């Protein structure tokens, strides 16, 4: 009979469809795994509601763990704060700046325009906001004025 730890191990092998350097576990989108009498229930939280990878992630979990029931939880329980330290390190190594911590109030434009976001290539915070939006809903575009490299910054959710 399958144990919850085995399910977690299997989920760690499923890459994010859009950023394959991180797994679903790294992203923190698996809220819980419950195994009862051989029935596996995985509770899963989407990153962005309009994320087209949502269906692909659900399907990948169902294929990896045959018979598992995947329940999508559509509330505010996922935040970019749930990306694991290992996940953040993998993102940075792949050229994606990890998200800033979530604050009690929603982020403001002046915060995004501030010089606090670190370039994933050279580490400088001398970076500017190019576009609030980017190639996928979860990312903004920034430009590093130090190493003159554009980069993608994870939005804080």
């Amino acid at each position, binding site marked *: 009979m399958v144990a919850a730890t085995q399910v977690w191990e299997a989920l760690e092998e499923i890459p994010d469809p859009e950023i394959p350097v991180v797994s679903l576990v790294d992203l923190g989108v698996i809220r819980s795994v419950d195994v009862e009498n051989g029935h596996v229930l995985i509770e899963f939280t989407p990153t962005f509601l309009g994320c087209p990878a949502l269906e692909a992630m659900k399907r990948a979990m169902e294929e990896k763990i045959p018979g598992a029931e995947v329940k999508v939880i559509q509330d505010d329980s996922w935040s970019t704060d749930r990306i694991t330290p290992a996940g953040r390190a993998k993102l940075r190594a792949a050229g994606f700046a990890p998200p800033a911590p979530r604050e009690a109030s929603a982020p403001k434009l002046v915060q995004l325009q501030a010089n606090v976001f670190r370039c994933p290539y050279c580490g400088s915070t001398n970076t500017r906001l190019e576009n609030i939006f980017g190639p996928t*809903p979860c990312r903004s575009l920034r430009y590093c004025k130090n190493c003159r490299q554009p980069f993608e910054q994870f939005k804080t959710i």
Partner: protein
Amino acid sequence: MNEQALLGLADDELVLGWRDSEWTGIAPMLEEDVAFSSIAQNEIGHARAVYELLAGEEGDADALAFDRRPEDYRCAPLVELHLLEWAHTIARRWLYEVADEIRITALKDDSDTAAAGLAAKIDREEAYHRMHAEMWHEGLRDEPRFREAVEELWPYALGVLPGELRSELVARVGLAEVEAVERGAHTEELAPLWEEMTMVRRSAPAGAQW
């Protein structure tokens, strides 16, 4: 928020998402092409989540989204307008985001915990749409062309919200309350949009596979 109001919210997000996506590839600058595409994608994602909530686990959210006749949609006329003109497009984005923030904030405190939880999630994403709208508003607020577009769309913006939430919109936009273009009736521009939006679904009644 009752079911009809939630359906109105979902329809607003679906139809405005459709309208905003019409800028994909033709926005006046590349940054806005990216921004409008991303905003549209989020809005359609919000619509899907609300349709799924309304349809329930056994229901069919796609049927709710696409199998109604145009006259049965509950969207506000503001989102239906086909506005391929930049000042009006930005005026609508800004007015809609201000109104939507008031509505979503109220929904976060709803006694229906599933709807309130979803509203909290939507609110996190909308924060970025509001930043975008506010950035444009700050840049254009004194431009006569933009002011005229805002004033022209103002009766439509009021129609996004139920009566009890309108005073806050009036305070935030700074225009006098006028007779609203109410939800329920539709503009002539909805039917052609509906034709296009439901075309694939109608072409494969048994369900398209790809």
